[in-house]
């Protein structure tokens, strides 16, 4: 017998799933949306995707190289360090880069993407401890950072649509036409100028690269659900609650209180709701741990998003994500699971 026997605590057999495998699965699920973006927006969209992914991975690599002690020693045997980096590389930065690219408009300048990507990885993720330790979603934070820093470009992309006359110049601008439900000038009756089918397929809709073609997003959702990366009910719950909230909130928005069920589908299908529901809200790191916590988190997020969209007329999905991420530690504390067969301890004296 040679001495290669390993001893450890049980279990001695484990599932084949790894962090890297899960992240590659997410990349595969994002691929249809990325390709649809290239089809609709051309090679500039491809440029955005490539720059974002490359910048994110490069930032992570540089951080790996210069963080911790022994920079000079690392420079000497750079080959070994690179091999070590590849060994621990788990594709999370690829996912961050890809998601960041897909929630940007195709007109974003390359240097803006570069700065946003570096912020996402270096500040939001690595500074807090790397994979699994970030407080907020790096892609959402990167997008928020870019929105505030390069207001002009991204502001237009966020605009839900001015309250006012809808003219063709606006429709043809690069603004995310969040809504098929662009409110008409008199704020009396909702009026949709884009068909639900157009919104679903993304034809004729301007917006962010990955958010326009809802059909491609659904393909990604099915893949994630089948591979059990995302719990199948999570995006559905979010969308259902969001639709309900949008329906009710829409009623309050118009001067004459009307509940119009026709508002539900355009609300869901416009902007980044589906993308956020499938790829951003169920994110492992920044969502609560327990099932009850997750249900609470998704429901509150969905209501907040639906209401804030009406109030601001902006696509606020990434800001709602950032906001809700900060509540996650509190939700985790509040929702502790009851163990199997748990009986409430009887108070003394009773």
């Amino acid at each position, binding site marked *: *017998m*040679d001495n*290669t*026997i*390993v*001893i*450890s*605590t*049980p*279990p*001695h*057999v*484990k*599932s084949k*799933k*790894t*962090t890297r*495998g*899960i992240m590659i699965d997410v990349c595969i699920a994002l691929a249809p949306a990325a390709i649809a973006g290239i089809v609709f927006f051309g090679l500039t969209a491809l440029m955005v995707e490539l720059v974002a992914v490359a910048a994110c991975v490069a930032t992570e690599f540089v951080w790996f190289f210069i963080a911790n002690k022994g920079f000079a020693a690392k420079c000497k045997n750079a080959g070994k360090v690179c091999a070590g980096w590849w060994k*621990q590389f*788990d594709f999370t930065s690829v996912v961050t880069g890809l998601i960041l690219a897909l929630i940007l408009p195709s007109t974003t300048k390359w240097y803006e993407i570069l700065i946003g990507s570096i912020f996402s990885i270096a500040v939001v993720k690595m500074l807090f*401890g*790397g*994979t*699994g*330790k970030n407080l907020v979603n790096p892609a959402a934070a990167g997008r928020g950072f870019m929105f505030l820093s390069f207001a002009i470009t991204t502001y237009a992309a966020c605009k839900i649509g001015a309250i006012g006359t809808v003219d063709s110049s606006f429709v043809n601008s690069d603004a995310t036409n969040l809504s098929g439900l662009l409110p008409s000038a008199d704020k009396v009756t909702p009026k949709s100028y884009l068909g639900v089918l157009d919104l679903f397929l993304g034809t004729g809709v301007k917006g962010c690269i990955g958010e326009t073609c809802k059909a491609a997003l659904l393909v990604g959702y099915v893949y994630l659900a089948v591979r059990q990366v995302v719990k199948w009910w999570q995006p559905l719950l979010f969308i259902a609650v969001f639709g309900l909230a949008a329906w009710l909130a829409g009623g309050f928005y118009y001067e004459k209180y009307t509940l119009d069920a026709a508002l539900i589908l355009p609300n869901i299908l416009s902007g980044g709701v589906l993308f956020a529901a499938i790829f951003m809200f169920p994110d*492992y*790191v920044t*969502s*609560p*741990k*327990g*099932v009850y916590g*997750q249900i609470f988190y998704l429901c509150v997020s969905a209501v907040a998003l639906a209401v804030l969209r009406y109030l601001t007329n902006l696509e606020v999905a990434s800001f709602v994500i950032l906001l809700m991420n900060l509540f996650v530690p509190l939700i985790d504390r509040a929702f*502790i*699971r*009851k*163990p*199997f*067969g*748990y*009986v409430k301890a009887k108070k003394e004296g009773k």
Partner: protein
Amino acid sequence: MKAVKGKYYFGGVHPKGAKELSASAPLEVMPVPELLAISLSQSLGKPAVPCVTAGQAVREGEIIAKADGAISSDVFASAAGTIEKIAEETGVNGVKETFIYVKPTENGEKAYFPALKDPSAEEIKERIRECGIVGLGGAGFPTAVKVSPKTPVDTLILNGAECEPYLTCDHRLMLEKTDDIVRGARYLAKALGVANIIIGIEANKPDAIALFEPYEDIKVVILKKQYPMGGERQLAYVTTGRRIGAGKLPADLGLVVQNVGTAYAVCEAVELGKPLYERVVTVSGKAVKEPKNVWVRVGTPIKDIIAYCGGENSSPVKAVLGGPMTGVAVADYESYTHKTTSGVLLLTAAEAETKAPTPCLNCGKCADVCPMHLMPMNTAFYSAAGDFEAAAKYGHVASCIECGACEYICPAKRPLIQAIRKTKAELRNKK
């Protein structure tokens, strides 16, 4: 009775069974090895106290150590021979254990108790105690204590789930000794004074289910193939719908759970007067040349068992005593079987997982599969930070049955069971 399906149970994992390796190998009796080392720590509770001295001749089945206290059991000579020495050595768990070394001789004389004909409840209880029978499922709780519950019980549950991958010893026993198991169960039921006997068998053993169906006094429940279906609390819920919470015993809810192997041992103890000194052990894993199910005497060296099964096929990465989900990994083959050793597994690199852990992703899969509905990630997080009170509070460590489902599913390969055991030990030391 006609088999019925068990209740739905939330939580659990579906590891690859790998039972096909040894499932078709009939039970074989392994020849007596050259030297036996019988540990005195054969059950929960205190180790037994030796009642023989070095150089003394013993017969097969003769008592060599007496139980010390209520939760302890007698130990018997597994073969006729002479006592070589009584020595303290480090056991498989890293704890010091006292071993009695027996050098077997050709003399095949047996020292059994007299057989009982139509025994009363008290006689059965006494026989179970004097034959040193312990739960053969793995925990090693003395059966004599279990058949004398302090609260009234109404149901006896036989555990034929065998949810651990690789292991097939209970399966083979159920196939080949069906009637003995049923008779043993009837003795147990009589000792307990209960009328209901339920046997839970996992759906992947249809042949065993079919064999138990003809018995009119036994209710067969088909369990979903899911780990850990054979856990005491899980089995009790699936078969009867009663929830046994933390700190409670099955007897508190009127149940007694016994392994099918234990029922067989009870049958032999009553009808033959045979003390518990041998059991079926599954020898399996892709690194074993001929996977088998063998009758092994307590105290048999692991290396002899492996040699009996043709030796190594390829060099193993892990050697495990027991099942792969809860068993103990040993560093070499210089250890000996106990009453509770259900398997000897040699796992190749393709089977055993030895990857280094990566950072926790907070994915919550461990909580989703926990059969006790706990949150293992909290325990791991707080115990790594050294805050064991919080680890116990937010992870409900006290309820953990250490089944290993959480660590099995973890994509980051976090050592969760290690963290849980560490927390339990730290809290014990503080008290």
